[in-house]
């Protein structure tokens, strides 16, 4: 993989949230992540691992009461994660986001045209007519049939897949450099999921876009991502080139996720699907948070939080045991 200048680099991101009893709980515990220009990076992990929170921190859109630490570098700019106001500069202009459910992420009472152009007019200080033209071009690019007529229609008049295309078009109409797609296919029919993923790949090529693709399904990103990060309980546990990570997972958690896929398991080793469920925030086990579910756990796993360490060029895992290093492909 060619060394690329990172467009976005997150360093030591921490996020804690207020709890019901008035305390605080860590949700994200020191995440480093970088995305090169034109790169698609996958961020995977089970529900509650902190994927969405990490993405929202980049945009400064964390829920009220969240406290953050760490640094965010974006295109040569350096922002403190704690200062949500700095990130507001990026929102919509440099970084755009697409959400999981296009049924709820588009405003039900505003026309497609309005939702496509309102931020364009605001950011670029251009007129309605010019904005309409750019928006229609973008709708055409994401293959909305009859884009001119679509501008006057409302979200409920489109299918789920079409709505997600509109949401993507609306996110990209201002020409951002980075698109954060938070589980963009999870809420859609299986039949339209592939189309959306192909669209993201196409847009990356055509618009020289960087993409952070969040998913809890490693299968979804298998065709798409250049590199993947796997998160568990607010930490990155494995990072590496997509092809290698999927073919030869080195962290037991990654391996468990892959084996839990309904079909197309990349190896037929007798590791059954992940037992148990991920811990809720505030209840992360001591040491490696994964150890209670890990069949390779040793004493050291219960004692220390493992650091992410390089095991090959471009490949890192947070596992002191590294039981899968010798497993053949």
């Amino acid at each position: 993989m060619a060394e690329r200048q990172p467009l976005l680099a997150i360093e030591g991101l921490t996020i804690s949230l207020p709890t019901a009893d008035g305390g605080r709980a860590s949700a994200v515990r020191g995440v480093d992540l970088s995305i090169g220009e034109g790169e698609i990076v996958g961020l995977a992990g089970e529900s509650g691992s902190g994927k969405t929170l990490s993405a929202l921190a980049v945009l400064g859109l964390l829920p009220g009461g969240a406290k953050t630490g760490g640094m965010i570098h974006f295109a040569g700019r350096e922002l403190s994660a704690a200062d949500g106001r700095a990130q507001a500069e990026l929102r919509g202009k440099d970084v755009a986001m697409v959400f999981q459910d296009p049924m709820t992420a588009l405003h039900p009472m505003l026309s497609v045209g309005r939702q496509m152009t309102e931020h364009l007019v605001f950011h670029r200080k251009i007129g309605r007519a010019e904005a309409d033209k750019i928006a229609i071009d973008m709708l055409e690019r994401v293959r909305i049939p009859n884009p001119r007529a679509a501008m006057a229609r409302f979200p409920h008049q489109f299918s789920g897949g079409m709505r997600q295309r509109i949401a993507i078009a609306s996110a990209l109409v201002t020409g951002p450099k980075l698109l954060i797609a938070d589980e963009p296919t999870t809420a859609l029919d299986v039949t339209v999921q592939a189309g959306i993923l192909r669209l993201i790949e196409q847009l990356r090529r055509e618009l020289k876009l960087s993409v952070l693709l969040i998913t809890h399904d490693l299968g979804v990103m298998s065709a798409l991502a250049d590199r993947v990060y796997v998160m568990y309980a607010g930490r990155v546990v494995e990072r590496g080139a997509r092809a290698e990570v999927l073919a030869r997972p080195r962290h037991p958690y990654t391996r468990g996720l892959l084996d839990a896929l309904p079909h197309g398991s990349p190896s037929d080793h007798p590791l059954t699907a992940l037992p148990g469920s991920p811990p809720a925030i505030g209840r992360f086990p001591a040491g490696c948070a994964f150890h209670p579910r890990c069949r390779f756990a040793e004493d050291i796993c219960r004692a220390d939080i493992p650091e992410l360490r390089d095991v090959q060029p471009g490949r890192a895992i947070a596992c002191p045991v590294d039981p899968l290093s010798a497993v053949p492909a």
Partner: protein
Amino acid sequence: MTYLRKSWYALPNLLRFVVRRLFVGALLCLGITFVSFALTQVVPGDPVSANLGDRAASDPEIVAAFRARYGLDQPIPQQYALYLERLVHGDLGESQQTHRPVTTDLSQYLPATIELASAAMILALVIGISLGVLAAIARDRWPDQIIRVISLAGVSVPTFWLALVTFYVFFFKLGIAPGVGRLNPGGKAPPSITNMFTIDALLAGQWATFGIALSHIVLPAAVLAIYTIGSITRFTRAAMLESLSQDYVRAARAKGLPTRTVILRHALRPALAAIVTVAGMAFGRMLSGTVLVESVFSWPGIGQYAYKSALALDLRAIMGVSLVVAVIYILVNMAVDLIYAFIDPRIRLG
């Protein structure tokens, strides 16, 4: 028949909706006339003794003339049929108190009430929505707490008591409120167009009269609005909290739109759809609430007219008021549904 059906469905949705609602409304009004007619028959009391002095009431000739004049000598079904027949021609009969056509009375008293209730409604909407939005944005912080107290007070204070107290304080104590009524004593009403003095004064370009009429309406309108301010505030806060937590609001933020736009365009709009419904019901409640406020502020409105008519068993006036109030309810409801459909494109009229 099929032709009729076809051309009916060829009409635009909006028109079909309006025609259907007006038709249903007309049926409803017919029902109202029947009920109010029946009620005026069964209430104990004799319009003769209520309207004629003791001496006149003891003179059989005068009584007979009175009964003949108002059709009271006819059998009851005939009286009703006659009433309906005149109604079709826009004749609501003659008031026994004022000896004028009820329509003339209504055209004078009704605009006063509509003016008062509309002013109150505008106040309630502007203040209630603003406070509700503020409270939602500042959820659980001090502005929210203060607004909660205000809105709770608004819905708890009895209107009549509030009317007396505010009048006492602002007129007698502070001397900053003008006196009762719609104009200063001896003031000349603007040329009669709508009979809403503020509007007529504006139309005639009489700025001084407009100022006076406005100063007279502020206090009673505010009193009338208090309850509705409270309920709209509470409702707006809840609806805003709901919409602020929606994905599409987060998506609007992610698009980098200014906070003001996110709140006023993306969050408030769905809340408004719900608020309109509440406001429609509130308007109905205001119309009945005017009786008390009108009597404290000597506002010559429909509430006062209805009250006096009821005391005098002025049958035609009572029925006229019932009918006109029913028509207002029907129109307001229709307007609410139209506005709702206008705000929310997912709603299909029909």
